[in-house]
């Protein structure tokens, strides 16, 4: 439990995350105001993807992960605590965004945040994470999306897969 609390504290005190959440809310309010009729969620979900990437990659800037592992040597438990903390932090951000937009589901936004965090953990680099995740959702995705429906089970499965891959990578890799 104290591991989860430590992770929560880390996420809450990261200025980049607060900035991302603030920008996402501002953009949502602006789009809801400007583009009447258009759904702002497809645009502002970029904010959640970036949120996930930044939350995960912050450990890898300047070797913070080594300190973290000194405190919590059990890596599987650390990854579990990280997922829990990120979901906890993202939920209120997602709920407020959905209220501002007047559309969409908060669960979807939380799931894609976890997905982005999993990808960024594997890549260990914020910029690479942003390119991969946004490149898929905004460049490649629209072309392959026709073959999948956009239900909730698919992002959930992907988030789980990304998180399993991230945990496997963290377990096996040198810090």
């Amino acid at each position, binding site marked *: 439990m104290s591991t989860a609390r430590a992770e929560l504290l880390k996420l809450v005190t990261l200025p980049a995350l607060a900035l991302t959440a603030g920008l996402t809310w501002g953009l949502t309010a602006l789009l809801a105001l400007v583009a009447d009729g258009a759904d702002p969620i497809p645009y502002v979900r970029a904010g959640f993807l970036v949120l996930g990437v930044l939350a995960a990659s912050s450990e890898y800037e300047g070797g913070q992960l080594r300190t973290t592992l000194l405190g919590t040597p059990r890596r599987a438990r650390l990854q579990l605590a990280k997922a829990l903390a990120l979901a906890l932090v993202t939920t209120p951000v997602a709920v407020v965004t959905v209220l501002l937009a007047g559309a969409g589901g908060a669960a979807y936004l939380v799931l894609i945040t976890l997905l982005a965090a999993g990808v960024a953990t594997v890549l260990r680099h*914020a*910029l690479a994470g*942003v390119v991969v995740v*946004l490149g898929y959702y905004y460049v490649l995705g*629209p*072309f392959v999306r026709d073959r999948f429906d956009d239900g909730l089970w698919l992002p959930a499965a992907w988030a789980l897969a990304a998180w399993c891959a991230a945990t496997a990578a963290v377990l096996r890799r040198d810090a």
Partner: protein
Amino acid sequence: MRTELLKLAGLPSAWVAAALGLLIPPLLVTLNARAAPAGTDTGFLELTVGVLGPLVLGTIAAGSEYRGGQIRTSLVCVPSRARLLAAKTGAVTLTVAVTAALSAVLTLDVAGALTGGAGPRIAGVVVYWVLAALLAYGITLLTRSGVLPLTVLIVNTTAVSFSYLLTKVTPLAAYLPDLAGARMYLHDMDTPGDLAPVTGGLVMAAWVAALLGVAGYVFHRRDA
């Protein structure tokens, strides 16, 4: 200038970016060929999406200097900041121009649109890609981190972009860099305003020049 080219060529992510720019448009043409009949903009629309490659390239060209303080070493070697910036800008321009020309020829060949009259439009694509890369490069110089510029610019390359939404609010949005620049090679655009190809290119170039001016000034004044 040679040093800057070498630095860029030594970055694995720069090669990934160039590969993205080279491979995405032909791939999309192949995917789309089954779904939609060929129009006047077939191939060129896919090249607009392929601008992802140059955007990443411009961002890492500026952003890589600020990881682990490489910028300090660069400035020790080339103390004149104006010269360092000019060389870097030149390296980005040259790399993207070559990538763009190759990708345009390859994509149009796959799309079957490589005809004699395509020359000026290919030139338009090359200019568009170079200016887009410099746009990303200029913003990254200001923010010193690539996350913000890449997020904004990637989301804006989607089919229904922010700029496109803004045209619903004000017709002035047609003068935003991406919409004005695309006039250089797209024929069917359902946005208001009717800029000629050369005018569109000049509008985009003016945006980039202004941004690079501000970025250059800030870079000149700031501690490394």
